[in-house]
């Protein structure tokens, strides 16, 4: 009786030791998220808890539907790792994996399931074994086995303890795996963020671009980390800029990489071909050549000339260019429905357009995401709503861009859009505004010179009498150049510049003929009926200031006249 009790006590002590080992191993397993470290702990603990000579862990390989020895603990560890593969059902571990049951075998030689190849390979002599499946959420993760109990046989109790231990190990392995996956995802996310930053660096930022006479507005919101929307603006010379705005079909990294390639190609093509139509033709052919899997590009690009106040552009299948005409206080849309996206047809001939881009005018380019933003019922935002959103009065480009974004957010009812949204806006802020005319000394040209002057003055608040007088004075000045400086040689150059600044109109007329000798300028004594000198009299009557500046060749005539503040400002 007493002997029995002592035995029981020693059993209990052993059991308590094992349970405390299990608890210890459990907390150990939870202390790490590193899968290799966890496998190590499992093996080391298996050996100790089971009082075994060796331990092996097989992980289940779903693809090959087989078990791969991941780690062994004992004298033969190195010979096992990664070298032993068991098919499902093969050997004891294979049987356990297949039946998902824990088994105890105390003499493997008497068990048909025993697969002696492993022992042959390693030189280890397996005697007894306890083997348990690692199951997590009904999914097989692997099989663990403890080999050759150091004293006596593996008991049923050993099997119970081992199976509990192994199920803890399964959780720990799975947690570590998930963590590893999460880390990988995080790394991918970080890489995407980096990609976005790199992509972003291809696109100019407002502060990066040194622009004279232009004001910029840019904003973009990106749907899939990296966007296919792109834009660029760079100087061609002192007064001309090249701008582009477009969208590469497709999303994510491929679209972004294609876009980065495209941006550098465009810069190269622009400077190489120096002609918008030729450049687009070459670019189209190149994009056609490199285009994969149906990728194409829509784009508006062109030359902004701040001197002639003209915009020469080509719309290659993109949404319309929106233009605010400051003179008429209205928005115009320039759609070219005949042109197709780039990279689709290498023989397509693109049609270019010229429009005026005067001081205070603004143009806006938008990406598909603006038009295609949907409300809760799935109705698209559309061009009409966009045009209604655009300010009808004087505005700056950044606030126009912000206004559209704000409206879109309100419309779609959320803060992030489904598509990439990019808006790019440029305002001509060149002031004073001036225009130039290159003509020659023919009386025939006088009517077009008068029209040129009249058109310019018509932008300002000037009475028709005042306007007629200014036209007359300029006509007289040119008449004098034809008659006296060029002595009726009707084919010589005349350059004219008109500008407006603070209510005053400035006129410069340059000729390359005989110099003017101011003392010889005959100003008629009025009234007089003798011909000659009348034109000069008109000029002096009409203009506030008149000066003749001799140049190396010819003369620069400068005149100015106060005409009052600009008409259109009353509209704002």
């Amino acid at each position, binding site marked *: 009786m007493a002997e029995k009790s002592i035995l029981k006590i020693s059993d209990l002590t052993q059991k308590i030791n094992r349970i405390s080992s299990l608890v210890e191993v459990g907390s150990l397993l939870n202390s790490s998220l590193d899968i290799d470290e966890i496998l190590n702990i499992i093996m080391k603990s298996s050996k100790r808890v089971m009082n075994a000579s060796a331990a092996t862990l097989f992980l289940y390989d779903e693809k090959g539907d087989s078990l791969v020895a991941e780690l062994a603990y004992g004298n033969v560890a190195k010979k096992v790792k990664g070298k032993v593969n068991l098919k499902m059902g093969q050997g004891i571990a294979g049987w356990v994996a297949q039946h998902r049951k824990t088994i105890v075998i105390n003499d493997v030689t008497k068990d048909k399931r025993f697969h002696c190849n492993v022992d042959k390979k390693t030189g280890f002599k397996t005697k007894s074994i306890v083997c348990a499946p690692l199951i997590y959420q009904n999914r097989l993760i692997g099989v663990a086995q403890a080999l050759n109990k150091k004293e006596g046989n593996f008991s049923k109790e050993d099997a119970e303890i081992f199976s509990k231990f192994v199920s803890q190990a399964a959780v720990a392995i799975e947690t570590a795996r998930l963590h590893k996956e999460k880390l990988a995802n995080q790394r991918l996310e970080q890489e995407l963020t980096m990609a976005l930053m790199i992509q972003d660096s291809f696109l100019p930022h407002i502060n990066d671009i040194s622009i004279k006479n232009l004001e910029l507005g840019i904003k973009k919101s990106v749907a899939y980390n990296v966007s296919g929307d792109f834009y660029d603006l760079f100087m061609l010379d002192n007064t001309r800029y090249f701008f582009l705005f477009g969208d590469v079909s497709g999303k994510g990294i491929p679209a972004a990489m294609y876009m980065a390639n495209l941006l550098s190609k465009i810069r190269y093509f622009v400077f190489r071909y120096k002609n918008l139509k030729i450049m687009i033709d070459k670019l189209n052919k190149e994009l056609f050549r490199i285009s994969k899997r149906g990728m194409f590009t829509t784009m508006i690009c062109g030359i902004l000339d701040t001197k002639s106040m003209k915009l020469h552009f080509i719309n290659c299948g993109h949404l319309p260019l929106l233009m605010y005409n400051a003179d008429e206080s209205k928005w115009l849309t320039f759609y070219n429905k005949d042109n197709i996206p780039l990279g689709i047809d290498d023989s397509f001939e693109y049609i270019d357009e010229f429009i005026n881009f005067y001081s205070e005018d603004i143009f806006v380019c938008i990406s598909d995401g603006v038009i295609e933003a949907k409300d809760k019922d799935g109705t698209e935002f559309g061009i009409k709503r966009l045009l209604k959103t655009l300010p009808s009065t004087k505005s700056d480009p950044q606030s126009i861009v912000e206004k559209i974004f704000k409206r879109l957010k309100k419309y779609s009812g959320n803060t992030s859009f489904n598509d990439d949204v990019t808006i790019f806006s440029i305002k001509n802020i060149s002031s004073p505004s001036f225009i130039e005319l290159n003509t020659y000394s023919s*009386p025939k040209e006088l009517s077009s010179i008068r029209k040129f002057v009249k058109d310019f003055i018509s932008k300002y608040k000037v009475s028709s009498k005042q306007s007629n007088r200014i036209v*007359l004075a300029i006509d007289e000045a040119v*008449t004098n150049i034809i008659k006296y400086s060029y002595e009726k040689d009707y084919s010589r150059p005349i350059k004219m510049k008109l500008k407006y600044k603070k209510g005053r109109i400035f006129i410069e007329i340059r000729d390359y003929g005989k110099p003017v000798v101011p003392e010889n300028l005959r100003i008629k004594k009025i009234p007089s*009926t003798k*011909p000659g000198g*009348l034109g000069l*009299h*008109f000029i002096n009557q009409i203009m506030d200031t008149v000066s003749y500046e001799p140049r190396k060749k010819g003369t620069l005539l400068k005149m100015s006249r106060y005409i009052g503040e600009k008409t259109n400002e009353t509209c704002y």
Partner: protein
Amino acid sequence: MKLAIEEKNNNTKIIHVMGTVDLYSSPSLREEIQTQLKKCSYLIVNLSDVDYIDSSGIATLVEGLQVSKKIGKKFSLAGITEQVRDVFSLARLEKVFNILDDLKEIDNE
């Protein structure tokens, strides 16, 4: 600029001037005035359809007036538009010419 000649009774002729009179067009107006002055005793230059005139146009008219005086003919202007009147006033020549307000005055004469 276009010119049309109208013959009236009493040896009177009217040159109707249409369009722009500037350095380019004034030589043909000048020639017409000189020609017609020889063919009539009273020449009227109708400027009601002139949208623009400059100093060369004014000089042409002044020359017509001078020649008419030398050869003892009568010379008048008619149909002065606002732009033309303003150019005359700039030249302070409004009072030099005999200006008819209305061509009907001739028929009444």
